[in-house]
C-alpha cells in the first residue's frame, strides 16, 4: 500500500475543471472538508478510483469557491457542513441549506413544499424509544411522503474542534467516542490516517489484530441490526433471538478485548494488547456457535411469508441512485453495488480473499438490506474463526515512507466506508475530519423515503440503521 499521495494544489479558478476531469475518468468521492479560517479557508477533496487515491486542495478566496455538488452529488452534505463550520460559500450550490448549524429561521433548513392538502409531520429530536436524538420533518399528503427534511446535529459535540491541538496519540479517544457502535472502525480509520502522516506502515500482526476487532465490531452490530429489523416488522421472537446473540457477541468482546464495545483496542502505530491462546480458542468456539445460531434464526425468518411480505418492495433504492448519491455499506450492496472498502484497501488490514456480499435479490429494498446483513454475518464469522485459530500478536509499525502533513484512512464500518482525514504539524493535530458510513447514508435515506407511506418510515429507517452520533460528532 502506498502512502497517502501528495496534495495537488489547484487554483480556485480551475477547481471545477480539475474535479470534473477526475470524475469523468471514474473517480468517486471519499470526502470533502474545509480547513483553516476566514478570509481564505482551504477546501480539500479526497477522491478515489479503485485502490488509488488523489488529494486536491484549493483556497476559497474571500471564503468563496465554485461548487462541485453537480459533479459529485454525494458531496452535498460535505459542502453544507464546510459552509456551517468554516464559512465557505459554494457558488452554484443553491440553496445551500443549513446542516450542522441550527438557525432559528425555518426557511434556512426546511424545503418549501406547497400545494393542496400538503402538511408537515414533525418528529423528534426526542424519539419514542431508546433512540438517539434527531429531527425528521415529513412533508406529506395523506399518508404519502412527498419529501423528508432531516435535521440532525442535535448531538453535535464539536469533537473535531476538540481534537485540534492534541497529539496524534491523544486523537484516538476522540475518534472512538464519536460513536460507540462504530468505535473500532472510526479509530482504525483515524490511526491509519495518523500513521500515514507519520510515514508508518503496520506489520502483519497489527493488520491482523485490527481486522479481528473490526470484525468483532461488525458481528455484534449486524446482530443488533437484524434484531432492530425484526422489531421494525413487529416480529418479537426474532428481535429477542438476535438481541440475545448480540449480547453473547459483546461478552466475547469483553472477554478477549476487555471492553464490550472494544474501547481502547486501537492505538496509533502499535497494537493495544495481545490475546492468549486459551482466550482465542474459547472466543473461536463462541463465535462459531453464534454464527450457527444466527444462520438458523435467519433461515427461520426466510420461511415466514408474513415477514417476507412486510419487507419486500419497501423503501427501494435503485443501483444507479445508490451509486450517484454515494450510498455505502450494506445499503449499497443491497442495491447491487458490488463494493466494500475491505476489498479496496487490502494493504492495511487482513482480508486476503474477501468478496463483497451479494444478496440473491439485490432489489435495494428492506428485504435485500436484511439479506445482505445475514450474508455478511457468515463472512464475518468465517474471518473471525480464521483469525482466532492462530491469534495475532499485538503488532507494531515501522517507518516506510516520508512523513506528510495530511493522511487519509478508510475502513469499512458495519455501516459502510468510513473515511478519516488527519492534518498534522509534526505530532500535533491541526485538523481532524471523520466522514462515517452513517454520514454518507443519511442523505440517501432522505431520498429513499419520498413515495413511501409514513408508517413505513420506521421500517425503512431500521433497514438503514444509521448512527446519529457518527454523523453529528
Amino acid at each position, binding site marked *: 500500500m502506498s502512502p497517502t499521495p501528495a496534495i495537488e494544489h489547484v487554483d480556485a479558478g480551475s477547481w471545477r475543471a480539475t474535479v470534473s476531469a477526475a470524475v469523468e475518468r471514474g473517480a468517486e468521492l471519499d470526502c470533502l472538508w474545509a480547513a483553516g479560517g476566514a478570509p481564505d479557508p482551504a477546501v480539500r477533496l479526497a477522491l478515489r478510483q479503485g485502490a488509488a487515491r488523489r488529494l486536491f486542495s484549493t483556497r476559497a478566496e474571500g471564503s468563496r469557491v465554485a461548487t462541485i455538488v453537480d459533479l459529485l452529488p454525494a458531496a452535498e452534505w460535505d459542502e453544507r457542513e464546510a459552509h456551517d463550520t468554516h464559512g465557505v460559500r459554494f457558488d452554484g450550490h443553491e440553496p445551500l441549506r443549513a446542516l450542522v448549524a*441550527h438557525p432559528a429561521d425555518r426557511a434556512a433548513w426546511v424545503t418549501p413544499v406547497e400545494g393542496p392538502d400538503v402538511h408537515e409531520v414533525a418528529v423528534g*429530536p*426526542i424519539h*419514542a*424509544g*431508546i*433512540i*438517539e*436524538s434527531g429531527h425528521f420533518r415529513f412533508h406529506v399528503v395523506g399518508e404519502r411522503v412527498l419529501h423528508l427534511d432531516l435535521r440532525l*446535529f*442535535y*448531538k*453535535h*459535540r*464539536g*469533537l473535531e*474542534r*476538540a481534537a485540534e491541538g492534541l497529539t496524534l496519540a491523544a486523537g484516538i*479517544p*476522540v475518534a472512538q*467516542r*464519536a*460513536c*460507540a*457502535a462504530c*468505535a473500532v472502525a472510526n479509530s482504525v480509520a483515524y490511526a491509519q490516517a495518523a500513521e500515514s502522516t507519520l510515514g508508518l506502515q503496520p506489520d502483519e500482526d497489527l493488520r491482523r489484530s485490527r481486522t479481528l476487532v473490526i470484525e468483532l465490531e461488525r458481528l455484534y452490530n449486524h446482530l*443488533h441490526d437484524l434484531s432492530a429489523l425484526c422489531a421494525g416488522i413487529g*416480529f418479537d*421472537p*426474532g428481535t*429477542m*433471538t438476535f*438481541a*440475545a446473540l*448480540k*449480547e453473547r457477541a*459483546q461478552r466475547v468482546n469483553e472477554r478477549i478485548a476487555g471492553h*464490550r*464495545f472494544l*474501547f481502547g483496542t486501537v492505538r496509533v502505530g502499535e497494537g493495544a494488547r495481545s490475546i492468549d491462546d486459551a482466550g482465542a480458542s474459547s472466543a473461536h468456539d463462541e463465535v462459531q456457535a453464534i454464527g450457527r*445460531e444466527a444462520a*438458523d*434464526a435467519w433461515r*427461520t425468518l426466510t420461511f*415466514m411469508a408474513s415477514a417476507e411480505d412486510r419487507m419486500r418492495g419497501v423503501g427501494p433504492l435503485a443501483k444507479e441512485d445508490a451509486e450517484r448519491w454515494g450510498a455505502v455499506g450494506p445499503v449499497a450492496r443491497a442495491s447491487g453495488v458490488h463494493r466494500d472498502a475491505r476489498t479496496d484497501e487490502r494493504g492495511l488490514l487482513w482480508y486476503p480473499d474477501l468478496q463483497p456480499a451479494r444478496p440473491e435479490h439485490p432489489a435495494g429494498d428492506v428485504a435485500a438490506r436484511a439479506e445482505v446483513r445475514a450474508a455478511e454475518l457468515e463472512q464475518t464469522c468465517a474471518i473471525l474463526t480464521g483469525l482466532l485459530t492462530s491469534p495475532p500478536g499485538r503488532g507494531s509499525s515501522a517507518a516506510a515512507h516520508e512523513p506528510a502533513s495530511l493522511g487519509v484512512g478508510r475502513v469499512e464500518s458495519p455501516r459502510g466506508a468510513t473515511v478519516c482525514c488527519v492534518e498534522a504539524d509534526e505530532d500535533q493535530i491541526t485538523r481532524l475530519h471523520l466522514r462515517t458510513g452513517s454520514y454518507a447514508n443519511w442523505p440517501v435515506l432522505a431520498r429513499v423515503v419520498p413515495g413511501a407511506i409514513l408508517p413505513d418510515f420506521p421500517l425503512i429507517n431500521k433497514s438503514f440503521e444509521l*448512527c*446519529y*452520533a*457518527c454523523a453529528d460528532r
Partner: protein
Amino acid sequence: MFVLLKRLQHLRRTVALPAPARPGSLALRHVDCGSCNGCEHELTNAAGPHYDLERFGISVVASPRHADVLLITGTVTTRMAGPLRAAYAAMPEPRLVAALGDCALGIGVLGDPDQLAGPVEDLLPVDVRVAGCPPTPAAIAEALLDALDLVRTPRREDRR
C-alpha cells in the same frame, strides 16, 4: 417461529436474572442528550432477554407524560438542553432523574465547550447516578431496581 420461541424460553430459564424480589413498577423515558450511542446500546441490552427489565415492572414509555423516571444519556449539548427541559416539564410528579453513563455525570467528557451545556446535574436535579463508559446492562438493571424503592418513598416532595 416456534423454534425461536422455544430457544428463548430455554435462555430465560438458564441465564436470566433471578425472579423479581420487589413489587412495583417504573416507567422510564429515555432522552439522549449527546451520547456516543454506547449508553443507548446497553440500555437496549438491559431490556433484552438476558436481563429483561420488563419482568421487574420496568419499561420504557413513549412519552415523558407517562414516565416516573427521566433517563438521560450523554453530556447535554447546547441543542439538547431545551428539549431536555421540555421533557422534564412534561412529567407528572413525583419524578426522578437518572443520569446514565460517565458523560451524563460529567466524567471525562470530550468535545468543544462551546457546544456543551454541561453535565445533567447543571440542568436538573439528579436522583440516580449510573457510572461507567458505558455502564454494563447489569449495572443499569441494578440501579433501576434500586430506583424502584426510591419512587415509593416520597422523600422528594419538599423539593418542589
